[in-house]
């Protein structure tokens, strides 16, 4: 395993009291493996990624273990951390406009990354920058290098972010919703690119997304998050075919399916998103769950392992 | 908490000021206009906390009595620019086009002159006095309000709820007054509170120069001017009104800043 996350917890200290955004997350990513991270908006996916790279705001308290090639990331000294980010772990942020520097050209921002993490000379860096833009499907790179982020469309910004993250050929890429602003045809190009890099360089990938189709087509394993916890994890094919957590099942049912069921009613998930400032005593999904039993309300189900599947649901057998 | 401390302090000062202006007679230890030939130019003492002037009038009493006029100046010198500026800002922000371009040029010209200089110039033309001062301040001061309002309106104009109002067939007047204005007015009002501090400073500056309130009317700037001839021998004459100006200014500024932080208005 190149990345191992054990019992990761993040608490935000806010004026209105603590927010338990991530509450005991376990993840593993092997070299060359792709892990999909899905779950409700606000379930802690972005916070988890940021915690792994130690990029959280000052009001966050992080505990647990993040091991990168057996090294404890949470205890790394600052200069080691700097080499880790960028050189070994690349990050694609959810909001590309916030993550790109508005006053520097795209070319300079790619160059910065190349300068810090490669031995290339000026000419070599420029050539590599062009190559990277081409890789993410931004043609006419020469002119594009001189443009500022605001001159790029939303989708192009997202791809510029990906190019910057890939500049140092990282061993692990943490990609937070990298294709939301993209047309499906461009999305397809990007996903193929990531899969190719994975195959050729053995790059590991954690892919956060809302699109279960993207997970099905790119990931080997998937972890489903709800209210700051992983509620179910396992190989994509078996999780999608037979979910073993009530939330996973509800999520799959809420999506319009394949083929000709057109016109049929979708099955929404009733109720409200859970509150992270007042964690539930029992299962966080219980108030919205259609198959819950009395135990769900009082005791939090613990994570169970069955072969390569993990899940935390009392109703698992009845799904 | 960081917000409540300045806001509380500011509101406390303003409350005190308001009480002084409302019932000065209850607070003044002496008749503010009563001459006392026994105590001409008396130094501060337990009997006269801030001393007396050349006619033996109690400075503290005069300062308290003057607060009414200064508070009136703070309000009137703010209301005129606020109303004129808001209406103009609302209209040019909404309609844009040549009116907006014209406004931009005009605003650029007005802000290149120092505020006080422009006001003094206008008062000089109109003649001294409070009313003319209000007119002069309104002529110059509306620009800031209009710019603030215009900026807010332009932000709101592209908001989807405004488009929704148009799709719902609401008249432009209704969209402007019922939907845009309530959402755009907040920073303008917060600024108005801070602006009252400037208004007090301005009012007393003009009073001092003899261009604002006229002598029988006791106004802090006028009081300070009264003391200027005795500045070497009896400096306390100007002290109490000076302190009053500083405190009142502080009160409005603190309240304004506190409100800004509380309502999360970005400037």
């Amino acid at each position, binding site marked *: 395993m190149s990345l191992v996350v054990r019992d990761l917890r993040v608490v935000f200290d806010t004026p209105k009291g603590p927010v338990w955004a991530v509450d005991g997350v376990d993840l593993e990513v092997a070299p060359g493996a792709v892990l999909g991270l899905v779950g409700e908006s606000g379930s802690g996916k972005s916070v988890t990624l940021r915690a792994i790279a130690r990029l959280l705001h000052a009001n966050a308290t992080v505990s647990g273990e993040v091991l990168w090639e057996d090294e404890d990331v949470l205890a790394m000294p600052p200069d080691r951390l700097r080499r880790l980010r960028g050189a070994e772990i690349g990050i694609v942020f959810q909001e590309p406009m916030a993550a790109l520097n508005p006053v520097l050209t795209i070319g300079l921002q790619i160059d910065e990354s190349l300068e810090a993490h490669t031995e290339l000379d000026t000419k070599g860096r420029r050539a590599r920058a062009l190559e990277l833009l081409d890789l993410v499907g931004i043609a006419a790179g020469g002119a594009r290098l001189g443009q500022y982020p605001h001159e790029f469309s939303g989708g192009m910004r997202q791809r510029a972010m990906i190019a910057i993250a890939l500049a140092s050929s990282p061993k692990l890429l943490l990609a937070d919703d990298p294709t939301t602003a993209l047309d499906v045809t461009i999305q397809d190009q990007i996903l193929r690119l990531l899969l190719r890099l994975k195959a050729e360089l053995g790059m590991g990938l954690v892919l956060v997304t809302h699109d279960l189709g993207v997970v099905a087509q790119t990931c080997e394993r998937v972890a489903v998050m709800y209210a700051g916890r992983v509620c179910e994890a396992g190989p994509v094919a078996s999780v999608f075919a037979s979910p073993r957590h009530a939330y996973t099942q509800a999520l799959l049912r809420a999506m319009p399916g394949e083929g000709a069921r057109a016109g049929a009613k*979708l099955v929404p998930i009733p109720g409200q998103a859970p509150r992270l400032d007042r964690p539930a005593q029992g299962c966080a999904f219980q108030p919205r769950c259609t198959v819950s039993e009395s135990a769900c309300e009082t005791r939090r189900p613990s994570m169970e392992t069955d072969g390569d599947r993990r899940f935390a649901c009392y109703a698992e057998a009845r799904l | 908490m960081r917000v409540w401390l300045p806001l509380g302090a500011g509101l406390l000062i303003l409350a005190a000021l308001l009480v002084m202006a409302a019932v000065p007679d209850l607070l003044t230890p002496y008749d503010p206009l009563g001459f006392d030939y026994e105590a001409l130019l008396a130094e501060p003492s337990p009997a006269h906390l801030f001393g007396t002037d050349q006619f033996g009038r109690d400075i503290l009493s005069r300062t308290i009595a003057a607060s009414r006029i200064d508070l009136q100046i703070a309000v009137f010198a703010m209301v005129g620019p606020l109303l004129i500026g808001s209406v103009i800002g609302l209209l040019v922000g909404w309609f844009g086009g040549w009116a907006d371009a014209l406004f931009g040029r005009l605003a650029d010209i007005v802000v290149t002159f120092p505020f006080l200089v422009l006001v003094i110039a206008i008062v000089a033309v109109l003649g001294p006095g409070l009313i003319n001062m209000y007119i002069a301040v309104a002529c110059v001061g509306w620009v800031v309000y209009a710019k603030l309002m215009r900026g807010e309106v332009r932000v709101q104009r592209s908001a989807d709820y405004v488009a929704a109002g148009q799709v719902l067939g609401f008249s432009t007047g209704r969209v402007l007054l019922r939907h845009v204005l309530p959402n755009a007015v907040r920073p303008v009002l917060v600024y108005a509170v801070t602006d009252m501090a400037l208004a007090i400073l301005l009012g007393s500056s003009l009073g001092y120069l003899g261009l604002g309130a006229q002598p029988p009317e006791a106004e802090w700037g006028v009081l300070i001017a009264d003391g200027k001839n005795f500045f070497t021998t009896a400096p306390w004459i100007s002290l109490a009104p000076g302190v009053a100006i500083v405190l009142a200014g502080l009160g409005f500024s603190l309240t304004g800043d506190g409100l800004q932080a509380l309502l999360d208005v970005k400037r």
Partner: protein
Amino acid sequence: MSIVLQANAVERRFPAPRGLADLLLRRPIRAVHALSGVSIAIEAGETLGVVGESGCGKSTLARCLVRLIAPDAGAVMFEGQDIATLRSSDRLRFNRAVQMVFQDPFASLNPRMTVGAALAEVLRVHNIVPDADIPARVLALLDQVQLPASAAGRYPHAFSGGQRQRIGIARALAMEPRVIIADEPVSALDVSVQAQIVNLFMELQERLGLAIVFITHDLRLVRHMAHRVAVMYLGRVVETGLTHDIFEAPRHPYTRALISAVPSLIPGQARADAVRGELPSPMAPPPGCPFHPRCPIVMPRCASDAPSLINGVSCWAAG
């Protein structure tokens, strides 16, 4: 079926801002060609899905249809009349008949009006019911979108995204419209609530006989709920037809690319090759067919002559 709303060869350009350099160098005025001759017809009681990549002009079309912006050329026809020429009472009748639901449920409600006041305002301004009946009608509207009566007294910020979208729908319904233009009404919502809103649209259509223009980039949703589909590319409709036909037998190469790029929910399905190339800039649309630079079956004439929409498809190869 009768046509209620129709766009005839609608064109719309947005001039690009001109900098000082442009003026000094006397560069020609450049413009984004957001719509270049779009024709669609909306029939009573049907759902027309509009799909296409980001920036292809879907929102611009929606705004033209509700008269928020005026076309530069062409016309939007309502009951056989150009809506640009409608005056006073006719215009109000148009406003009442054609309503819009916006993408961002947070931005499309006035934050300083309670939900009840916002609905009552619509009813009062248009004299839809006598003043005495307004409170009762407000409650009926809330009930129609499955919100509790207590919602009337609260401000928009007190609601979740899905609930706000219901409020937006209720406000449109207050006008008793015949057509609802919904511009990405579920894109800003979590998957778990998307289904609720989609179901609500389908129910309302059934009950009230509404025509719905459903703009989205989610092809699965379109397939699920639209009767007919219009596929847009770079400001043009490139293909239109019955949903079933479009998905089973797409005729335009872009439609084909779009459909084959939708990631399937079933893991490991083999996918067709991706389309190559960058989306062209709407500032300088390519001559001829807008899709030809990326088209896998491009022919020489595609680069010079623009095909027009004949029998529901705009492609030289489909003849």
